[in-house]
């Protein structure tokens, strides 16, 4: 109820048509994004390529760079946004997100350690360590959440503090090993540059979580009413929270592993979604996911298309768009105590 009052600008359209609209938007954006980049490919040429008689150099670019990048943008955007929506529901804090709870910073620290201390390690180790970093961070946070019986706000604060500790560690390594700073910085900003089918295949297993989430949505609504009511209604709320938190951590871990720590998608997308379709998870989750996809698609397309051949990491663009919106939300949000 609280959420609904705060973000009460519900659209008059029925939710499912909005979701259809969003899906169409994602598809259109993906098509537009296919043409953008250092080498412009017109819609007609794209069509010819799909029919199998385009220019070979264009086909190569489309198949090797643009299509995988667009898929990654769609999946990572959706993944981070879904994770954010779940976190906001489970922690009952409209400002919770992967960045806020320090999980992305944990992944960042682990990645920096690998880049700096084990520069010869095979390239697959990097996403793996990022994932482990995120998981460890989440585990520490969960211990706080459940040992202390903490308030949702305390969780957010503890998350920010853990993030600060990781940041201190990251700075230590960057100062101590200045020669690796380039790779490290790029990774910490989050970029889809140089990502390809390998990352798509890292991300694909995430889709397994889709049916799990669909099965859990009705229970999540009950959960967001509060522990007391949820327990009263017979939901085993504690276990459910664990499961949901784990799902979101897996999503975050895999996404960060694939593209680095891209910020603010997990926070902004669920908010916009909630304003448009309301806070029932059955519509909120798909809508968040779609908004997340749109957000990252736009950010990456801008990054590629603005100053070719120079690429701007998508993480910079999501921050520049996302932070002002976040601050605006914070200003409006009078309820958090």
């Amino acid at each position, binding site marked *: 109820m609280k959420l609904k009052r705060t973000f009460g600008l519900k659209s008059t359209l029925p939710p499912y048509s909005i979701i259809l609209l969003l899906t169409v938007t994602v598809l259109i954006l993906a098509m537009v994004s296919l043409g953008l980049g250092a080498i412009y490919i017109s819609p007609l040429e794209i069509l010819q390529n799909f029919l199998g008689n385009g220019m070979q150099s264009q086909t190569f670019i489309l198949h090797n760079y643009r299509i995988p990048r667009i898929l990654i943008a769609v999946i990572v955007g959706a993944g981070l946004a879904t994770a954010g929506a779940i976190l906001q529901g489970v922690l009952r804090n409209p*400002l919770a997100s992967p*960045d*806020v709870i320090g999980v992305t910073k944990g992944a960042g620290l682990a990645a920096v350690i690998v880049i700096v201390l084990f520069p010869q390690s095979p390239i697959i180790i990097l996403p793996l360590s990022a994932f482990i970093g995120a998981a460890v961070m989440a585990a520490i946070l969960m211990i*706080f959440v459940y040992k*202390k019986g*903490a*308030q949702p*706000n*305390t969780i*957010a*604060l*503890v998350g*920010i*503090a*853990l*993030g*600060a*500790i990781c*940041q*201190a560690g990251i*700075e*230590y390594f*960057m*100062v*101590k090993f*200045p020669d690796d*700073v380039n790779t490290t*910085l790029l990774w910490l*900003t989050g970029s889809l540059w140089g990502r390809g089918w390998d990352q798509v295949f890292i991300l694909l297993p995430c889709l397994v979580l889709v049916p799990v989430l669909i099965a859990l949505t009705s229970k999540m609504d009950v959960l967001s009413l509060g522990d007391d009511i949820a327990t009263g209604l017979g939901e085993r709320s504690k276990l459910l929270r664990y499961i949901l938190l784990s799902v979101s951590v897996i999503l975050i871990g895999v996404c960060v592993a694939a593209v680095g720590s891209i*910020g*603010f998608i997990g926070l902004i997308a669920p908010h916009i979604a909630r304003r448009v379709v309301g806070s029932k998870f059955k519509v909120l989750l798909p809508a968040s996911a779609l908004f997340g996809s749109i957000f990252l698609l736009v950010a990456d397309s801008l990054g590629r298309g603005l100053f070719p051949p*120079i690429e*701007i*990491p998508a*993480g*910079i663009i999501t*921050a*520049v768009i996302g*932070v*002002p919106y*976040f*601050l*605006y939300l*914070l*200003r*409006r*949000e*009078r*309820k*958090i*105590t």
Partner: protein
Amino acid sequence: MKVLCTAIAGAVLLILGILTSISVGASDIDASMVLKSFFEADSSKEQTIIRTLRLPRALVGALVGANLAVAGALMQAITRNSLASPQVFGVNAGASFFIVSAFVFFPNLSSVSLVCVAFIGAAMGGMAVYSFASGGGMTQVKLALAGMAVHFFLSSLTQGMIIFNEQAKDVLYWLVGSINGKTWAHVNMILPWSLFGLLVAAMFSRSVSILVLGENMAQGLGQRVYRIRILAGILVIILAGSSVAVAGPVGFVGLIIPHIVRRLVGGDYRRIIPFSALFGALLLVYADILARFIAYPFESPVGIVTAMIGAPFFLYLAKRGRNIKQ
């Protein structure tokens, strides 16, 4: 009595710290030489090193530490929020973003104008966080979130600058905060602002105490509350801005020290402010000594040490999760 003891202990430790800081360095200078240099000045190489390099460095450390700690104490007073500090409040981030931009776009700025640029940045960063966090009462979590977001935003912009200008990468190390290699020029750069800021803060500490008693009580004093807040805000900008201009954004000093001081001497700002200055100086001088050993024989920025101490302290405060007891 306890207060007096604390004051003496603090002062002795600070002097010891400065002396240690002066005796540790690349060239081998023993303690007797350090002492001698204060009483029998000569122009030997050792003494020149002490006079022109080590002493100003220790002084800059002490001044920056005092500035940041007092700025933190003032912020915690005006917001009555235990997480308030130049770092969390975006003041450091704002000042350093402006200075980095100045480095990149106007590389030949004089040191005075650099300080002014830092003031503008500090004011903008602080005001942004304040205005966004204060809607409907500033809670800890809102402050922390707003601070984090502004910090994130500014560092993303800095990254953007680095992409278009490889030269800008040189300022990355500066962004951690360091007092390595500071000279009398830097002392001169920060000293007037420090003296002004610290003295005015001490003079107004009584009014600040009233402010902390709660707005309801202070209401009777009418307009004054508003004026005290504005004045404290200006002091914060001067203290934190000049520190960042000289040493870069050294983090967490302003967060930790006021809490420790409050524990030691109680909640009266007439004591908190001078003691924050003392212990802030103390922390930074010792942190700087530690920083020289992290990557020995190379120097590390002192900001790393304060971050490593400060971040867990932040965690401790967050875990406690409540505002300053009134």
